[in-house]
């Protein structure tokens, strides 16, 4: 069954390491829906969260192939276990009238977002949460205003509880 998966990868923070993982996805024909990467508390390591859509057999192959890369420590599939996932989005919307401004403010409050920049003709909004919440806010906003642009970080995630990816 094809479903959305979230993979978390711990790897050496070295030039080339990220391109090896990305190369593997294109080389073996796997899709990447989102990608989020940054160094960890230990600056010699990076942590990568990838979301993709595939079935059980393919996710097993992806996991094994990533694990095989020399600079990868660990790969874990967060999808089925208890986990927290968050994404951050910045959206810029046009605010031509007072009425639109009020409407937007209401939606942003409902979604627990924040208006982080204001100019005479637009607002920039910040919101975090699971991807579907961000999708929903985007839909709501576009019903009452012109969405000029949006930038999303891609999902990052951690398993809940004691479980952790470390070396």
């Amino acid at each position: 069954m094809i479903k959305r998966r979230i993979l978390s990868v711990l790897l050496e923070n070295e030039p080339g390491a990220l391109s090896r993982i990305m190369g593997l996805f294109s080389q073996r024909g796997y899709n990447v829906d989102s990608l989020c990467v940054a160094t960890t508390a230990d600056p010699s390591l990076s942590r990568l969260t990838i979301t993709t859509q595939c079935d059980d057999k393919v996710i097993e192959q992806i996991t094994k192939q990533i694990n095989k890369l020399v600079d990868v420590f660990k790969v874990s599939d967060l999808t089925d276990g208890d986990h927290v996932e968050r994404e951050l989005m910045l959206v810029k919307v046009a605010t031509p009238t007072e009425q639109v401004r009020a409407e937007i403010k209401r939606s942003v409050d409902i979604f627990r977002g924040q208006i982080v920049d204001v100019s005479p003709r637009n607002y920039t909004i910040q919101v975090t949460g699971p991807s579907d919440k961000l999708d929903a806010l985007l839909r709501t906003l576009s019903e009452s205003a012109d969405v000029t642009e949006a930038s999303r970080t891609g999902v990052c995630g951690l398993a809940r509880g004691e479980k952790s990816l470390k070396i």
Partner: protein
Amino acid sequence: MEMMSGAEMVVRALKDVGVKYVFGYPGGAVLDIYDALFRQDEVKHILVRHEQGASHMADGYARSTGDTGTVLVTSGPGATNTLTGIATAYMDSIPMVILSGQVPSMHIGEDAFQETDMVGCSRPIVKHSFLVKKAEDIPVAIAKAYYIANSGRPGPVVIDLPKDIVNIQESHPYEFPENIDIRSYNPTAKGHNKQIKKAAEALKAAKRPVFYVGGGAIAADSSADIIALAEQFNAPVTNTLMGLGAFPGTHPQFVGMLGMHGTLEANKTMHNADCILALGARFDDRVTNNVAKFCPHANIIHVDVDPASISKTVNAHIPIVGSVEKVIEQLKPHVKDITPETQKEKLADWWQQIEQWRSRKCLSYKTSDEVIKPQQVIESLYKHTNGEAFVSSDVGQHQMFAALYYPFDKPRQWINSGGLGTMGFGLPAAMGVQFAHPDAISAVVTGDGSIQMNIQELSTCLQYNLPIKIISLNNRALGMVRQWQDMIYKGRHSHSYMESMPDFVKLAEAYGHVGIKVDHPSELDDAMARCMAMKDKLVFMDIAVDQNEHVYPMQIKFGAMDEMRLSKTERT
């Protein structure tokens, strides 16, 4: 601490990891390294005529010894010319290190003269790669590269060396690492005990077992263990194209190679087995045929060092991650109670069935008084080398004939590009073999198409006095392509015929070697004997063979493993 230039460090580190031969070709970015090579004589450099040749030589050297092959080339075109060789080694899991020159660090990214992103170009076809940034890092990078290349599932590793860090004008302290620790890389060799027990139970319960042995068994040097286990269980054994020689070709329990051009008995045995023990094989599409119809009755035990190879195409019932050698060792205590005698009784029906498949003699062929059959040439080669030659092969019909008609009794005796199917591999690979085994017979079985893909290396053979025996099955065509066109495209031979064949005898002579032309079946044995008698000469045998011969048996597309054509008119 010893002080030396980056270039000297490269050569010194190669010596310290135990490299005997470097196959290479100079150019601007590596001139400093070549200068360092010139000023020592422990690491021998072999000057090739084309960098692709260097990569296949290093590969042939590695396949025939188990040691890592080494290539040294300049940046840009020198580096890209090795890509086919790297991909060839990658597909067959061959340990190889490729040192490529790179433009000076400060010019990387500027499209400088002879700049290519070698790390990027080679990324999908290497096990790992290094772009070295500082001269001090050279020894560690080299030590790590050799360790990675030849551990776990072996494979090629690229080391890209910018010109400024190998500058002979600068000195740096040299320190070779005593231990290599790569914290993110720990290949597993030992199997999981619970899985081993399950495998032992499955094998003991099997009434129709078969051992399916691949290249991983050769990489793990596990032939002796496999023979012992197979004899204990009295099990039939089949080798893949990559596994030929891992289990002896003349052993009574050997049922032949399996797969697309496997024997009828091998494919039948697989298809009807109730338990398959796969040892270092990867269920590739040239073996399985239609996966949906693959071996419907079998309990599959899959042993492989690479977890990603397990259940990639065919689901394994008992997956075991580990090297073939270690896993068999772990298996032994669990099967102590099995004896060949009881197994003989238990498998009597199975063997009777197998003998019946064997009696079809699927490899028989008709000889003719007028024209030489390609199969005959391989049989003659076998006879005149006592079955002991190293046989390297190119790609095409001749490759399949060699695989089927030369029973290999020893691992590493059969050298061929199984995974990538690289035409042009044969001659340079046989040269690598000859460097590693100067006193052995190193033969190449090739075709008129393939041999022309790296023929320039005949010149290298002269320079280093390599007495290679080239057995060229000249059918005046790209035979394997032609065979498919006969079978699938109603005989429309689109561009599979070569006009203007060179006179190969004269060509061999022009390069300073001996050429022998053979046209008639009556001359074949004599000519082969003459060829083998010229121990210190390269002999190019240009043998005219039947253009219309097809390789059989051959699996029928989309069918089960054992659905095969047995000749132009017969099928299973």
